[in-house]
């Protein structure tokens, strides 16, 4: 806790815009000149985010200690005004936003420190810091957005930063392809998002009097829930149209948070430098989709505020993604891609949480996941760095000895993501699964199975990388301090944050045999949603036991297959040459053939067809008709050739005469 008195804390809340402005300013300064000096670029970028972290903690403290007594702080400026509507841009700080601010600034800070070690030799070092700063600014802007329009704006900005950073090594053909794919797939999502906003705007534009157009929160009934309610009363919106709007807007989160079927860009995004994978493609940007759904939650409810079909869509998409990504992760051999697919899968969990009403569980998992997944990615970066660019886990092994700190952190991260008891992932995942069991038992069971697979593939990764004997040709070495310290710092929240979302009184009650679905609130949930928030989970001992058992089973399978190598199921799958096993293995290895389907459709079917159609239509019809008219005049001019010699004049004269004639006819016969 910072030694500040309440009035100072209040000042911090009311000037939250500075958090956003600082990294933008830093990025701008680096681009405009500081990039000449590597040290200056680094210092500018890091100090902006250090300031941001400090400011975010102050805001958090102000909200926790009630030094800022209101539930939220909001300030807007008119960005575009006209008689029809006014679009605003502003700053919104409430409990949810303050948590996200801390996550973003903290992870960004650690990643930026790590970058100093990781990118030291790269000629684009300063440029990298500029992009990092711009990204951090955009992400923070997204977090404090006051309305859907502003959110859409920053949504695109984080997307473009992601594009720059994936394509950071522009000379790599694969990176060039990956960055373009990421941006275009995201644009497909944004297309739905945009149309969703348009429909929503059309339905609700008359109900924001006194508030912000498309605003999330507001006083006097201008918050999203009340606006939807008012619109429903005035018949401007119905349950059906709200469902359509919710599904369209959800296309945005589906693309940004890499959900089926728009997930295809995320694994390829691993072409970017590893710090980026940690910051953007694991901890922050991909979580923007979850944040949007949480922020604009009333859109996914029915007009009268009940859980409806839109949430089922969210949960289903999340469940499919979680399951699919886990099956794919089991057979991948690139250390970063395994992590990428696991990110996909974990984001699916978060959507399941939001979709089944375990609302705090989804946010809580986002919070925990940000730390442990960032750490896992940074560990993988340390491994790649230590092995001079090697990413294939088949050429690793035994790194425990040469990279002890990385090994320790990776192990912590693996345990956290696999849902081992007492690590952070356990608590949030458990909350999501128990929520799903109540509303959608099938999804709940699917998530339990996925949890087992998660434990399996994560430990497979761990065993292949860090245990056994080294199988490659490089000389592994531990990373410099700038890289190991951020790892160690991140390992602390990975171990401890789980307890924030857990009330031991509930566990005691469960152990004492009191069975209740709605237990006492925990710290995390009551902070994010207040003591009367949407949903609190009690402790279900049976479920907890089952999920522990399944996670342990996954761990045991990985242990037997990849450490002791006494069970050969995996090899059996990989070496099968026919039958179901081969089919399943190929399906997993080839990522369910989604890329092949998309590229096949675009490259083989859509583009060639389109090219032919375009050539035909534009060359034959447009040019043909318009030139045909020209030809008509040319032939007329042929007649006049003996009088006129210049081609230009003859065209002009004929046109002029024709039109003058038409005008004359129109003048004689006016239309009445």
């Amino acid at each position, binding site marked *: 806790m910072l030694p500040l008195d309440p009035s100072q804390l209040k000042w911090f809340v009311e000037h939250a815009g500075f958090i956003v402005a600082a990294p933008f300013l830093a990025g701008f300064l680096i681009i405009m000149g500081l990039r000449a000096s590597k040290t200056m670029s680094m210092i500018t970028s890091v100090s902006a985010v250090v300031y941001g972290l400090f400011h975010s903690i102050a805001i958090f403290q102000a909200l926790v200690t009630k030094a800022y007594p209101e539930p939220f702080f909001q300030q807007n400026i008119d960005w575009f005004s006209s008689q*029809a509507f006014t679009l605003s841009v502003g700053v919104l700080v409430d409990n949810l936003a303050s948590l996200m601010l801390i996550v973003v600034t903290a992870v960004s800070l650690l990643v930026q420190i790590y970058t100093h070690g990781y990118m030291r030799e790269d000629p684009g070092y300063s440029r990298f810091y500029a992009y990092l700063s711009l990204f951090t600014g955009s992400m923070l802007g997204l977090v404090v957005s006051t309305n859907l329009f502003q959110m859409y704006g920053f949504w695109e900005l984080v997307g473009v930063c992601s594009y*720059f950073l994936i394509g950071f090594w522009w000379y790599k053909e694969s990176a060039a392809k990956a960055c373009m794919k990421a941006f*275009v797939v995201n644009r497909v999502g944004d297309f739905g998002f945009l149309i969703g906003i348009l429909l929503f705007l059309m339905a609700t534009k008359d109900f924001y009097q006194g508030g912000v157009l498309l605003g999330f929160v507001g006083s006097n009934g201008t918050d999203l829930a009340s606006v939807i309610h008012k619109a429903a009363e005035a018949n401007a919106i119905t349950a059906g149209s709200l469902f359509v709007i919710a599904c369209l807007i959800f296309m945005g989160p589906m693309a940004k948070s890499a959900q089926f079927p728009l997930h295809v860009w995320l694994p390829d995004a691993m072409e970017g430098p590893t710090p980026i994978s940690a910051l953007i493609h694991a901890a922050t940007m991909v979580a923007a989709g979850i944040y949007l759904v949480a922020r604009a939650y009333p859109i996914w409810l029915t007009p009268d505020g009940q859980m409806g079909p839109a949430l089922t869509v969210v949960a289903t998409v999340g469940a499919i993604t979680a399951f699919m990504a886990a099956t794919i992760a089991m057979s991948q051999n690139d250390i970063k891609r395994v992590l990428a697919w696991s990110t996909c899968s974990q984001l699916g969990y978060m959507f399941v949480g939001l979709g089944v009403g375990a609302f705090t569980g989804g946010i809580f998992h986002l919070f925990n996941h940000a730390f442990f997944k960032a750490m896992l990615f940074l560990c993988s970066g340390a491994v790649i760095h230590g092995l001079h660019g090697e990413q294939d886990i088949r050429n690793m092994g035994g790194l425990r000895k040469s990279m002890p700190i990385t090994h320790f952190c990776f192990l912590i991260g693996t345990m956290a993501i696999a849902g081992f008891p007492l690590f952070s992932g356990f608590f949030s995942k458990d909350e999501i699964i128990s929520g799903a069991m109540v509303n959608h038992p099938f999804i709940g069971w699917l998530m339990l199975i996925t949890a087992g697979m998660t434990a399996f593939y994560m430990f497979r990764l761990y065993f292949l990388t860090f245990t056994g004997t080294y199988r490659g040709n490089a000389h592994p070495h531990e990373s410099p301090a700038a890289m190991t310290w951020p790892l160690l710092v991140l390992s602390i929240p990975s171990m401890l944050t789980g307890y924030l979302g857990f009330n031991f009184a509930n566990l005691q009650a469960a152990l004492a045999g009191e069975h209740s679905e709605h237990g006492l609130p925990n710290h995390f949930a009551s902070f994010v949603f207040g003591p009367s928030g949407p949903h609190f989970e009690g402790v279900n001992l049976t479920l907890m036991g089952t999920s522990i058992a399944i996670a342990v089973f996954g761990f045991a399978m990985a242990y037997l297959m990849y450490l002791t190598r006494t069970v050969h199921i995996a090899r059996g799958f990989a070496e099968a040459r026919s039958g179901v096993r081969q089919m399943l293995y190929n399906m997993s290895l080839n990522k369910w053939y989604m890329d092949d389907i998309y590229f096949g459709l675009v490259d083989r079917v859509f583009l060639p067809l389109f090219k032919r159609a375009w050539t035909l239509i534009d060359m034959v019809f447009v040019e043909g008709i318009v030139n045909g008219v020209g030809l008509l005049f040319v032939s007329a001019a042929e007649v006049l050739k003996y009088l006129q010699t210049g081609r230009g004049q003859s065209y002009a004269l004929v046109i002029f005469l024709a039109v003058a004639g038409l005008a004359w006819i129109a003048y004689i016969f006016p239309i009445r």
Partner: protein
Amino acid sequence: MSEPQHLLSILLLVPLLGCLAIACSPEGMARKMAIGFGSALFAVSAWLVAQFDLSRASEYQFVERLSWFKHPFPVEYFVGADGLSLSMVALTGFVTLMAILASTSIGNNRPRLYYSMLMLLTFSVLGVFISMDLLQFFIVYELELVPMYFLIAIWGGPRRSYAALKFLIYTFFGGVLMLASLVYMYSQMNASATFDMVKLASLTPLLPRDIQIMSCLGFFLAFIIKLPSFPFHTWLPDAHVEAPTPISMLLAGLLLKMGSYGLVRICLGFFPYFFIDYGPQIMALGAFNIVWAAAACLVQQDMKRIIALSSVSHMGFVLLGVASLSSGALNGAIFQMVSHGVISALLFFLVGAVYERTHTRQLAEIGGGLAKQMPTLFYFWMLGCMANLGLPGLSGFVAEVTIFYGAFTSPMAEWISKGGMVQGWIYLACTGVILTAGYMLWLLKKLFYGEELPKWKGHLHDATTTEKIVAYTLSFSILALGVYPAVLTRYYQPISDKMAAEAKEHIEIGFDTNQQQDPEKQVH
């Protein structure tokens, strides 16, 4: 505060004097003098902006009027500027200066004639934006053909005479149509006949519906040829591909804006019924332009052609915004004129910069990897492409998003009988968001990403100082407009609000009569 006198005449005199002075000066001096006159022009337009009274933004200011003769019809010199004209004048001053600075490649190829023509072009463009007399408007609108024809036909690429002639014929065709409409309108107004655009704006909306539509048709066709819009757009790619870089900057940055300016000022301002009766169809045309041209970009191999067709796509937004009759979308459409003027100037400039180094515009021959030897140009390209595909924070986004928002909440989209169709066209236009991202990024990838071809090793160089000045200036304006659009919108917002409000009055009448003609619809 007393209004300074003759400011607009000074504004017109600068390029006119420049044209004559450069023509009489030695060849070696031409470029320096052109930069001098260009700067003077920019300074005068800045002065004009500074003197502009924002509280009366919707009225004509700095008005000057000289009557020549009155019979059989009045001919006069009549200029004035309201917020809309002012925005366009500022754009003209700015882009012209940039184009003059970018004219280094002209070198010793008859610079005197070139710069003198350029000044004449500027004169006529300025004349279009500040004319308050319709006849005078028509004359300067047509005058622009002369310098443009020669600029393409003398300094253009290999197929320059074809392109110049095609440009001339298309535009001339439009001009004649406009003249026909002008005469028709004048004759239909009987006793109150006038060319005074202020009076016309209040008189012509009172004309009978059919006459309005007939009169507007010629103007409309002339302007959408200039805009250009499908199916009259084919002159544009040819003209751009053949024109030298600075001329492309002017062509896309300013000349296309004459079409959109006319569309707002004359078609919408004088003949609201045209938009009420055919608004949905015009919106459909706009949406179709956006998608069609963007789709066409996906199959081009010539980088300049891609940028040229993307202009067609982006001017489709103007059509969509203007025809929706919503103040928000109209505001966005005017913003798009300025924004596209700057963005396309930057993009054509960058195309020229790459072409000067590689001497080819074919993407396959360039083969990618240029970022290695041209990092600075690469960043400018990135910014230009991002602005073109509507990245928030850059000016393209403001226009796109406000046009979409405005069009979707416009009276057209909420019109009971045709609203569904209008919404459908807006959905179609929204797919342009994906297509634009697709072709712009594909272009960027083909030029800069990947390994560079062996033939370029050591043969290319990065941006020169002049290039950096031009690119930085254009980029900063794009950024400034995008971050805080109110710097521009406050100049013309009262006008777009007023126009939308006036159109709305007519809509109430117009939609009613439509429904009376359609008794079955009323039963439902």
